[in-house]
């Protein structure tokens, strides 16, 4: 039987020589892949999803195409004959090319892919993969780049001092405000990262408020605060008799959020079995309450957040890679308070006025010395820690100006330490032997707080200005040491 010679066109050839798709996105993909068989399959996947595909079988051809007719997005195999994939990526970034680059790698080479992301790749996908995976990844990367372009066209000088509960006019917060605003207008899933206390839930609520779903429910669920055994029912609900204690039908968070936004805080703490069920819900929009045989269609926009590095969680097998790809569409990273030092005084004054009003006190401002101390502290618990300290100051003192004497010794000491660190003068009486590691100090503070609260971890967490999951995680890590 004669086989027609269907080949994947080398550089310069378009469309990989394979027929397939009917719809078109108007977007072009450069597929850099030395295996013709894999290139043929991937081209067919992408063409079917509506992309125009050009194939380059090696690094030299790829660079020629990139310089001659830049595509909208690049799919890059890292291991190529001759010029390596990583060098193609460097060539692009050195020339200022901003097209998204998705690295295609072996499952066992995720480390290499992560290194490529540090060199400027936008995402990676592990081989072998199917059409669904690559289409979602390409679509996400293009959508994220489009949002980035929208953010760029906002006037640089359009500065805001506050935004949906956030306070601060620093450059990093201006970028965050613009990103939230742009992302909210799309229907894309938002993945928020940031240390504890940086305002991840505030950010999720801001996205909801700026979106077309603003007049529909915003439902938040903390994956670290609810026991694993109850989590499925919390999210998907249950029917009467599903388990002991299920005395009536109950709607879960997902159904409560129908038409609105469903926010999963601490998503990386979710049990892996439940991650599989969540993936199915994210993919299909259908859920099945615990104990029910019926599937229910629910329309929600997903937002999730974590204070961990989600890629690290994927790499270590704690977070499903396929769920990561479904959820990690528009990443928003919230800066820690220490990285926006110029905002500390404004945030502190805002909190002081608000808390004073709540507590019926007369505090109006901070003395310049007190502000300096606040600015000199590292705020490991971020805004939540600052808020708790100000509440403690307001409750325990009277007056209209907060002075250094009213601030906790811990803040004054650490703040002074930071000043001394940057000063050539060494404080009298201080010596290197007396310096303790931050880890040691943190551990002692946490254990003291838990003792003071008679073992009540959530209460200790509230006093420390962090979430309970942070304390559980840290204690677990110490027990492994």
């Amino acid at each position, binding site marked *: 039987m004669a086989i027609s010679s269907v080949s994947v066109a080398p550089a310069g050839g378009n469309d990989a020589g394979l027929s397939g798709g009917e719809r078109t996105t108007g977007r072009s993909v450069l597929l850099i892949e030395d295996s013709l068989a*894999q290139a043929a399959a991937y081209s*067919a996947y992408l063409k079917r999803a509506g992309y125009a595909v050009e194939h380059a079988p090696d690094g030299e051809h790829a660079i020629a195409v990139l310089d001659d007719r830049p595509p909208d997005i690049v799919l890059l195999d890292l291991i190529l004959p001759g010029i390596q994939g990583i060098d193609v990526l460097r060539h692009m970034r050195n020339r200022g090319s901003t097209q998204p680059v998705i690295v295609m790698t072996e499952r066992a080479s995720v480390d290499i892919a992560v290194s490529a992301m540090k060199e400027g790749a936008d995402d990676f996908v592990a081989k072998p993969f199917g*059409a669904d995976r690559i289409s979602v990844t390409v679509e996400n990367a293009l959508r994220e780049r489009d949002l980035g372009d929208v953010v760029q066209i906002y006037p640089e000088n359009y500065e805001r001092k506050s935004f949906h509960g956030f306070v601060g006019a620093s450059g990093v917060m201006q970028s965050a405000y613009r990103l939230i605003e742009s992302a909210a207008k799309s229907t894309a899933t938002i993945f928020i990262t940031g240390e504890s206390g940086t305002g991840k839930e505030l950010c999720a609520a801001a996205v909801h408020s700026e979106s077309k779903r603003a007049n529909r429910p915003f439902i938040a669920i903390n994956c670290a605060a609810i026991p694993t055994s109850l989590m499925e029912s919390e999210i998907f609900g249950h029917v009467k008799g599903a388990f002991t204690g299920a005395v009536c039908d109950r709607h879960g968070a997902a159904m409560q959020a129908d038409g609105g936004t469903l926010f999963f805080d601490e998503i990386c703490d979710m049990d892996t079995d439940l991650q599989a069920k969540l993936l199915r819900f994210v993919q299909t929009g259908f859920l099945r309450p615990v104990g029910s045989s019926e599937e229910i269609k629910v329309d929600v926009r997903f937002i999730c957040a974590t204070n961990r590095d989600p890629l690290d969680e994927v790499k270590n097998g704690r977070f499903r890679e396929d769920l990561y790809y479904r959820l990690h569409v528009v990443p928003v990273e919230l800066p820690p308070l220490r990285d926006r030092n110029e905002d500390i005084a404004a945030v502190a004054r805002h909190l002081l006025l608000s808390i004073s009003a709540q507590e019926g006190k007369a505090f109006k401002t901070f003395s310049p010395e007190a502000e300096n101390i606040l600015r000199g502290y590292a705020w490991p618990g971020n805004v939540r820690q600052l808020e708790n300290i100000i509440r403690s100051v307001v409750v325990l003192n009277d007056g209209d100006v907060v002075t250094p004497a009213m601030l906790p010794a811990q803040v004054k000491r650490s703040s002074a330490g930071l000043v001394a660190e940057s000063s050539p003068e060494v404080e009298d009486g201080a010596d290197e032997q007396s310096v303790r590691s931050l880890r040691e100090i943190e551990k002692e503070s946490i254990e003291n707080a838990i003792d003071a609260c008679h073992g009540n971890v959530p209460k200790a967490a509230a006093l420390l200005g962090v979430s309970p999951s942070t304390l559980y995680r840290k204690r677990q890590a110490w027990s492994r040491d």
Partner: protein
Amino acid sequence: MIDPFSAVLSTPEADRSDAFGTAPLDGWLDKAALERLADDTAIDLMPQLVDIFVSELRGQAAMIEAAAKAVDLSSLARESHVMKSSAGTFGLPRATRLAEQLNAASKANDADEALVVAARLLATIDPSIQALLQTYGLEGQIEAHGAAHGGT
């Protein structure tokens, strides 16, 4: 000392699969993977895709054979790297698994293990190709392959 690679290769062609373990012809294919590929592309594209894949697989097998004879671990690593992804996509589970093992042994500079695995991998290629071509009605390619290799 017996060279394990030559020992397996000197086995008559028809018996090479015994070195790996006998299996019915359709046992060489992961039909679910092939159905997924057809769903993801188009069923009428499959013969063309399989044709491209088989040509490439034969070339890779020839290069692996040459690299094994020369005990060239770096070429073995390179060729097995490409083969493991392609074979996974095109539903050849045994070739995929052995290509992975060959890749790992070559990268670990374990020449003895690499040569044994290379021989076992090469023994899976012909039956895998045969099963694949038969599935898509491309038996003419089997004859062409047999002729090119002096056929047994």
